[in-house]
């Protein structure tokens, strides 16, 4: 593949080519930056400020600057470390399974068959419902006494006793992860499906002619070309899942006994039940830092979105 060098002769423009390129680049970014500044950046800064104060809403007389006081309390809080561990299980369990099954789904949906449009549409459905409603529906399905899952399992003879999926500390996390996987597969399926379209057929043909089997073609062509999209999809999904409190909040409330309490639901509790906005602010800042650290490492290891 020869690249023509761009060696045209030009007259000297007023603004140098490089600067112009920079300006064009930045101007493309302006709309996006504006959107974010107003809706996210400012509130985040406010929350950071909030975390440095003792801010319990029903004790306004105690409001004062305490510097890192909330953070010290955080480090000593055993529930916090438990929620951090739960978050890791929740996030990686969900995302890995979503990715694997989503990829499989994308490969399947790429094949040509009749009714493909319909199947693709049906696959998208779990993603459409609001998280709170998904939580309600699955909570109903998991209900030990009149839920469909137990009913079907017992009727099929695979289970003798009714299992209380969401009330048992052993099963609760698995059950909510399963629901999250159900909800998240369409995301990967569609994203990866779109990415698969950009892989040129000729590459597959050439490899086929060279004698590469299906698996080899997958490993050496598909995966590397999809790398930017895989990284983007998994990174955003990991971050969303970390922050996503709705499902757990509705299905188990973080219970039983903190078995499914993740850091973001714990933050919610502190903010709106205990009305301790200072501590909630500190929790969110720490969560932000953890995710930033993780993402930086992740992007470096996977070589991010650098072009293939």
């Amino acid at each position, binding site marked *: 593949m020869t690249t023509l060098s761009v060696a045209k002769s030009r007259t000297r423009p007023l603004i140098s080519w490089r600067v112009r390129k920079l300006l064009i680049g930045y101007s493309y970014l302006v709309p996006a930056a504006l959107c974010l500044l107003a809706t996210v950046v400012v509130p985040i800064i406010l929350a950071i400020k909030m975390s440095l104060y003792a801010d319990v809403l*029903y*004790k306004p007389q105690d409001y004062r600057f305490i510097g890192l006081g909330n953070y010290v309390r955080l480090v000593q809080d055993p529930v916090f470390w438990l929620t951090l561990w739960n978050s890791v299980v929740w996030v990686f369990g969900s995302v890995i399974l979503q990715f694997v099954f989503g990829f499989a789904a994308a490969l399947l949906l790429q094949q040509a068959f009749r009714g493909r449009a319909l199947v693709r549409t049906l696959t998208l459905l779990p993603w459409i419902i609001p998280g709170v409603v998904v939580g309600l529906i699955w909570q109903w399905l998991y209900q*030990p006494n*009149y839920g469909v899952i137990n009913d079907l399992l017992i009727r099929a003879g695979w289970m003798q006793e009714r299992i209380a999926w*969401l009330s*048992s500390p052993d099963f609760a996390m698995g059950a909510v992860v399963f629901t999250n996987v159900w909800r998240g597969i369409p995301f990967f399926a569609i994203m990866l499906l779109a990415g698969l379209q950009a892989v040129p057929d000729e590459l597959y043909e050439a490899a086929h002619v060279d004698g590469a089997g299906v698996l080899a073609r997958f490993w050496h062509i598909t995966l590397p070309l999809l790398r930017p999209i895989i990284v983007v999809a998994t990174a955003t999904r990991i971050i969303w899942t970390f922050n996503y409190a709705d499902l757990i909040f509705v299905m188990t*409330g973080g219970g039983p*006994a*903190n078995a499914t309490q993740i850091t973001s639901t714990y933050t919610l509790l502190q903010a709106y039940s*205990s009305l301790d906005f200072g501590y909630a602010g500190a929790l969110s800042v720490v969560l932000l830092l953890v995710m930033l650290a993780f993402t930086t490492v992740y992007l470096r290891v996977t070589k991010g979105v650098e072009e293939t």
Partner: protein
Amino acid sequence: MDERRSISRRKLLHTLAGTGVIAAADLAWWDAPYIGPRKAWGAEPVRFQWSVPEPTRIALINSLVERFNQSQKDFAVQVEYVPQAQARQKLISSIAGGNPPDLCQVWDNWVGQFNGMGAVEDITARAKSWKHFADVAPTAWQTVTISDKIISLPLSVTLDGIYYRTDRLKELGLKEPTPDWTWDEFLSLAKAFTKADKNQYGYGMRGSGTWALLYPSEFAYANGAEVLKDGKVTINSKEAIDAVAWYVDLALKHKVTPPSAATDGFVEIVETFGRGVTSMYQHNSGSAGQQKKNVGAGNFATLPLPIGPANKRASFWFSETLTMFKGARNKEGAWQFMSFMLEEEPSLKYCATLGLLPARKSILEKPEFAKDPAQAGFVNSFPIGIVSPYLAYPGWGGKIDSDGVPLIQQAILGKISAKECLDRFADILKKEMS
């Protein structure tokens, strides 16, 4: 699929983007709202947040608001319905943002925290000069009084009792329990009701939500314990520990509770009773109307809580209130609406439709409430009603939710003993006593 078609689609998208952005900037699309009260000319708006919207209540509140708006020309109430899961968050956010509604409907345990935030209007003067002040039960006033200041109007009151299936009793040939039943009678009835193979259980224990901790506390009172005694926290006294140990044994030893007990909230305990999975459960009169629909009016009845070994019992009062905020822009209008809601006809209509008990004694004596077997247990519980001791400190409400409930869940699951649960809970309460 050719490039030209795709480019024109691109153009279409760009044009849409253009018009979309412009149209978003210019609002007024639909003229008059589908629903909502017609504003009388010159009427000052009163913003009212209702926190339990669902079709029956929405229709009821809409009609009451309409009647109020039409009965006078000075004020026009506008209702905002917020789904209850978000209601508290929204109230807190709007208070913190300096712009609360004029009044809202909330439960008494939320009011304490709002008062601690300095957000609630003191209505002592208005209440005391109100014509029905003496007609409201003193305990009802107690639920909304903090440091001798009345801060809300109790819309309806309730306290806890036990619901049970009368049809199942007859089926199984069991003896009808009396209002003075004891713990032993309660236990044997629960055991008799339990048929695990038929998916039936005796008692729908509640493991989730604030009341998961309050129900065993009521049992602790029946054993002579108290939450606060002489200003000290005594929830982990020996009597309390024994009582709570007996309570969690219902789940652990006698297995009269369904397997989902540890995470069942009030929706679940109401639904499991409604579907016949449990034959008894503990709750306030609020779900009586629901059960008439679920189980059938003639198939259940209610009783006061059973008498404990110390020959005592107590049931916590609980009121649904109308609360005015200090930051309200239309306080006079809010007060007019609040007192309207407690007039005879609105109060009767509200409480009778929803199965709640009115706060005013004269309305309570009407046959709709006094003669209804579904309400009998609660009316009979009035003598044993006390104001929930957990309202004593504003910081307790939140801590019960975030720290107390996981403790009782662990006890219900058998992971910690009742003693450990109560000891740690007492510590949490002590820390919040400033």
